[in-house]
């Protein structure tokens, strides 16, 4: 596991220091985790590889939806009803339940704590989009709000798990400060959002 890179004594000391310690976990710990997963449903496969059969099924559903809407529209409306664009139809599979960001949350927020690298950080929320900016880094994705839960997904900073959903409980204090309490998030944005507080910028 431990490798040598160069002759810097700090590296050699760190190799040795971090090489020490246990390397085996108690099997009971795994057993307990497995007991938990037996009652924990898996989330939908939002990031699954493209499949022709799945794509055909989605296309067929869209055709039915659009043509069905047109027929109903022609039967009930005095004027033709424009058919919805497929590009703006959210996939029920891809979107967690919830609605767009409410007015009380919409806007730009400044983190009261700096990011782990010491940079100031800002969070923007609006509609079904969020963005995080820290220094020259900028990440964004989609968001829905379900009651007191803020659900972030399709984040462009979540490379290995593009569909990973981050769940946070949000509250607004009397003085307008936004607090985000981490429920779970497998994506790196958790570094900035987990158990954080924010002041409104605008």
């Amino acid at each position, binding site marked *: 596991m431990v490798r040598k890179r160069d002759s810097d004594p700090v590296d050699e000391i760190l190799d040795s220091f971090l090489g020490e310690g246990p390397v085996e976990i108690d099997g009971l*710990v795994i057993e307990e985790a497995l007991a938990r997963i037996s009652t924990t449903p898996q989330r939908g496969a939002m990031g699954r590889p493209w499949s022709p059969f799945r794509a055909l099924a989605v296309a067929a559903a869209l055709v039915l939806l659009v043509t069905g809407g047109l027929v109903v529209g022609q039967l009930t409306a005095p004027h033709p009803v424009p058919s919805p664009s497929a590009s703006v139809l959210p996939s029920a599979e891809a979107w967690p339940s919830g609605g767009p960001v409410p007015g009380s949350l919409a806007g730009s927020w400044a983190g009261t704590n700096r990011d782990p690298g010491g940079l100031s950080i800002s969070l923007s929320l609006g509609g079904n989009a969020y963005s995080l900016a820290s220094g020259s880094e900028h990440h964004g994705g989609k968001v829905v709000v379900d009651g007191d839960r803020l659900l972030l997904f399709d984040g462009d900073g979540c490379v290995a798990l593009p569909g990973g959903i981050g769940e946070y409980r949000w509250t607004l204090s009397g003085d307008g400060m936004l607090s985000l309490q981490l429920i779970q998030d497998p994506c790196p944005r958790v570094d900035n959002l987990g158990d954080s507080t924010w002041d409104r910028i605008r």
Partner: protein
Amino acid sequence: MDRRLVERAQDGDEAAFADLAFGIGDRLYAVAYRTLRDGGLAEDAVQQALVTIWQQLPGLRDPDAFMAWSYRVLVNACYAEGRRQRRWDAGLRLVPTDRTLGDATAAVADRDELERAFRHLPPDQRAVLVLQHYLGMTMSQIAATLGIPVGTVRSRLHFARDAMRAAIDAEARLAAGGERW
């Protein structure tokens, strides 16, 4: 890691996931322990990571990336565990060292100083040190694993190594002063 096993687990096969969990458990624990410096916290982090891995596994695009992705989920679980427990900076209650003791005791003192310095690092800096020095990852591998830019990895390593170097240098100065006495 067996790709077919990952794919079966992605389809909800709990037996396949159990095989995966036992296959990666030791590696996850070793990394969690070295990051959190506490066996109990490391076990909790591994448990939470395994549950999250199970929940989010269907969304993993490339089954061959399973191990790297699992490390990422684990590191995030370590961050969360550290935040919950608020024990990142608790440090060990160490007995003051007697510099007149022999080499073996001095070596223990050096290690305690390293331990103290490491515990004072923020969690993101601990994680990159562990990935580099324990798992032997390159900066680009760390960046890909954690989903952060290489420049961020470089800066985190830079700050972490500077802090550890300062602790090592301070220890060396103390040791040199002790010899004069």
